[in-house]
């Protein structure tokens, strides 16, 4: 089983995100970066499949600046076998489209049975990467899976996909792209021996020239959407603390306020 996991490094969910003074970019100074939350599920599932099958390779593919190596090392410490790192200034500032373009080109020459992505990257929140990658590689894609079962002959997968009000059970022939969401598994923590081993695993850098793509096709120049301006959302103010001597009185006052003041019930 050859399994590829597309992994992005993103700001930690607790990080405070602010635009630069001219509001055209995000100020990343002092921010802690981590592996994208949904990509953790993707890495974990890849490792579990490899363990169940008893053979195979899990390869991490990351596009990002130099600091992204930390998240790649985390995945290697969890148990992934090797990694490629698309690291070139030309790749920066892209959208899901131009990022998927570069990822697809890098993956094209590799062998794979399964490609895992996260459901969405929690920085740009685009939730497009997996499907666009599937399109570029001409593979079927299934988004937001919460269960993955490999067939006996390893040629097919049966997965569960979460939709509003239900779960779809879908069968697809491999190779295919899947995007992972919460509920799929419990990602493991890297072990100490894992961390030691990760240092010796192969991590191959890839530059723009290695891909045979032009500068116009990737990163900011190749993007189809572009942020003109960032702004902070309106601040929500603390409202009224509902008065009353007993819980019953508070409940009564709250019901009245919701009816007469807020007019929502």
């Amino acid at each position, binding site marked *: 089983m050859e399994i590829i996991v597309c992994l992005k490094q993103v700001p930690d969910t607790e990080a405070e995100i602010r635009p630069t003074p001219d509001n055209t970019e995000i100020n990343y100074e002092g921010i802690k970066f981590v592996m994208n*939350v949904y990509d953790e599920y993707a890495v974990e599932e890849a490792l579990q499949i490899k363990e169940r099958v008893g053979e195979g390779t899990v390869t991490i593919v990351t596009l990002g600046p130099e600091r992204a190596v930390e998240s790649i090392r985390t995945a290697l410490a969890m148990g992934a076998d090797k990694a490629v790192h698309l690291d070139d200034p030309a790749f920066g500032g892209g959208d899901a489209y131009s990022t998927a373009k570069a990822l697809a080109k890098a993956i094209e020459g590799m062998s794979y049975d399964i490609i895992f992505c996260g459901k969405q990257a929690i920085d740009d929140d685009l939730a497009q990467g997996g*499907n666009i990658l599937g399109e570029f590689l001409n593979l079927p894609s299934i988004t937001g899976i919460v269960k993955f079962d490999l067939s006996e002959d390893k040629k097919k997968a049966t997965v569960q996909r979460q939709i509003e009000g*239900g779960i779809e*059970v879908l069968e697809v022939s491999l190779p295919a792209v899947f995007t992972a969401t919460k509920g799929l598994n419990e990602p493991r923590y890297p072990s100490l021996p894992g961390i030691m081993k990760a240092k010796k695993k192969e991590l191959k850098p890839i530059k723009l020239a290695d891909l045979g793509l032009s500068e116009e096709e990737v990163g900011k120049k190749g993007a189809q959407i572009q942020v003109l301006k960032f702004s902070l959302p309106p601040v929500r103010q603390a409202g009224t603390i509902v008065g009353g001597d007993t819980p019953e009185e508070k409940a009564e006052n*709250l019901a009245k306020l919701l009816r007469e003041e*807020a007019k929502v019930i």
Partner: protein
Amino acid sequence: MAGIWVYAEHRDGTIRKVTFEILGEAKKLAEQKGEELCAVLVGADVEGMASKLGAYGAERVYCVEAESLSGYTTGGFTKALSDLVQQEKPSILLLGATANGKDLSARVAGRLKVGLATDCTGIAVDDAGTLQARRPMFAGKVYAEVSFSDVTPQMASIRPNVLLALEPDETRKPEVIKITPDVKPEDIRIAVKDIMKTGGEKPDLTEAEIIVSGGRGMKGPENYHILEELADVLSGVVGASRAAVDAGWRPQSDQVGQSGKVVTPNLYIAAGISGSIQHLAGMGTSKVIVAINKDPEAPIFKKADYGVVDDLFKVVPPLTEQVKKLKAE
């Protein structure tokens, strides 16, 4: 021939609410651009739903019908929709940011090699007629004004419960155009084995107007009936924090927050929820927030329009009674 298109998502023969919300806003854009507002229905038997789209503002409705499209598949729907878009060349294509809407829009954008802004909370066109979208990023910590390359259609998916639908007008009759798509089995590539329903008849959290959520303060799954009862009298639905979901008290589909669902109801009641940054990411743009928590220092009170500092087990049951009383008046 350009046009602004809205993809009309439907389930069990009913058009999803977000479609009407998008039509309402897209109508303004169409007027501004001097283009026609069209809706697209894709499925096996969809023509019956066309008139409703007209009532909500669509001047023209494309009905793309084939037996092979009886249930949603990424491959089948992508082929049917992209082929029609390539033939008719709309300038803008809008979809609901639902599970299937996000899935379909991403695959179509990849195929047509066009830009797509996900989960937008506002749309407009600039003087040149280019789409501009406003979308939350970083789980709503910042908003971005997004612009598109000039390759068309410019695509956006729209968050449910944010835009306003028009009052339906049944006298508005749309032009209906039937399309027979060219969808082959090799376009579909995925077999739908089963669809397990979980929600019953209740609307999904993302479409609900009132949500009553319970967190770790609920103490156990056996206590959620008090929230169900409150939700019932309010015609709302029950949600949960991640702590409650991870404890196995509630299903994953009930989770509100960064790694669950993003919701925008008129009223969000948080009972026994502390208000972590990840929970707030999912419900912080609710129109009215109520917090019921016994800890006056709980961060949720900083975001709540109404706060009740008390034991939820003593507040929720009488609240249900009071609402019942008010509704009966």
